């Protein structure tokens, strides 16, 4: 939750953040594909303290039948947090937050996939948050995009998630857990980097127009860096022509 009260100073006198980062600096990110052998495609990401795994099954027959669409595949992302992923043990199973995130992630992924190629099928994307450290939805959409690529699902572009926000009245990139808890705003986004299209956009908090556009631009710039990491990760497994799939 944004806006919990606290005496914590989130930006120090040198303009550095609680974890030593500059305002527009990302946390360390590590990616890997092909981590779930049973799946059609999969990937793993460590992003700051986040540890998230994604797997893709499909395109496969959509079941139950009434969910099928005659002219396209349906994309069903399921965002789920492990019971041990957060400080206080979370009851297993979906809650309202995970239902909403599953929905917006499904919609964002759909925008990138050539769903019209696979009528009547389902593309199931399972995102398991093993350890959570703020920004799980944007990390989750990023790792899901890698898993889709690993599964050979044709896409207009890879999709990249990234967030920016405001803490101690400063616009910053990629909030960590303390910044998320005690900050003033969070703007999670997902981008198709080639065209700059925005596939996911949420926001909560309290931002002026200028702060909000600053934050969005910061996130979109960073998204390009993350995009390059995605490309490199896929190249490392599949060789050079990843970008052309």
């Amino acid at each position, binding site marked *: 939750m*944004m*806006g*919990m*009260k606290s005496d914590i100073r989130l930006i120090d006198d040198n303009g550095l953040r609680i974890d030593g980062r500059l305002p527009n600096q990302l946390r360390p990110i590590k990616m890997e594909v092909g981590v779930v052998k049973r799946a059609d495609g999969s990937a793993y990401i460590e992003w700051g303290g986040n540890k998230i795994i994604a797997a893709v099954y499909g395109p496969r027959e959509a079941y139950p039948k009434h969910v099928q669409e*005659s002219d396209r595949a349906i994309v069903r992302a399921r965002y789920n947090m492990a019971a041990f992923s957060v400080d206080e043990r979370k009851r297993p199973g979906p809650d*309202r*937050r995970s*239902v*909403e995130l*599953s*929905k*917006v992630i499904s*919609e964002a992924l*759909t*925008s990138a996939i050539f769903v019209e190629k696979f009528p009547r099928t389902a593309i199931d994307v399972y995102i398991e948050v093993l350890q959570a450290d703020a920004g799980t939805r944007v990390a989750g959409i990023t790792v899901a995009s890698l898993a889709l690529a690993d599964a050979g699902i044709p896409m207009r572009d890879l999709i990249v998630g990234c967030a920016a926000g405001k803490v101690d009245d400063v616009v910053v990139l990629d909030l960590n857990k303390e910044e998320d808890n005690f900050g003033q*705003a969070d*703007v999670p986004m997902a981008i*198709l980097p080639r065209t*700059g*299209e*925005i*596939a*996911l*956009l*949420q*926001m*909560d*908090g*309290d*931002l*002026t*127009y200028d702060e*909000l*556009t600053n934050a*969005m*631009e910061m996130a*979109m710039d960073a998204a390009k860096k993350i995009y390059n990491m995605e490309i490199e990760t896929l190249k490392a497994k599949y060789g050079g022509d990843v970008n052309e799939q």
Partner: protein
Amino acid sequence: MSSKFTEGVVAESKRSYIHKLASEGTRIDGRDFDEVRPIKIKTGFIQRADGSALVELGDTKVLVGVKIEPGEPFPDTPDMGIMTTNVELVPLASPTFEPGPPSEEAIELARVVDRGIRESHTIDMEKLVIEEGEKVWVVFIDMHVLDYHGNLFDACGIAALAALNNATVPAERFGFGDDFKLPIMHYPVPVTFAKIGEWIVADPNLDEESIASARLTVTTNEEEKVNAMQKGLFGTFTYEEVKKSINRSMSIGKQVRKIILGDENGKEN
């Protein structure tokens, strides 16, 4: 019942028609792109609630009831009241709504309205403490959709704000002193846009919603601060489109806010 096939054909021809109108600068119900449907607000409709508002946004009709009861604070916010929001998409309101536990649509809607209110600090939560760490006021915002003709995000957001603005904390009933008006600090108003082809229209009606490629809700307050955004559907927006939508939301929100407050003031005086 029309067959699925027929539905497809009808939808397709409706889509073309709406696109054509948009290219001519108009809409299926004759509105301008930034024109919201007529808004009617009836506050205090449910006397048994502590605040309520029946809102019509065009033909869309939403009833919000606010109940305020004592409860325990969350351990990490012992000095603040609690608010919860819930949306019931009851099957009375549309042939597409089904009985049963809340759908993902209902959950998203409730959460977007919730964030619009919560993150804007609409309610002064610090004034809702009865005994710090022990007892606080819990504000239940229940939204009951009664007729669905498009754009529930705005209808629910407007109705929730109007109902909160209408609400009294029933302290006396529970033996905690005198009743007092629920302390409202801000007036955040959501404005939702639908992308239709290359055009973006405000307050989409049911037809427009059914063919929109993308949806964007921007909630802004009386200080022109942005408190919440939510993008939906399978399409995308360009950055330019988002920036314009934020600006449009501020100016449309201002008009809507006048209607919400005007009504309430009218009632109060």
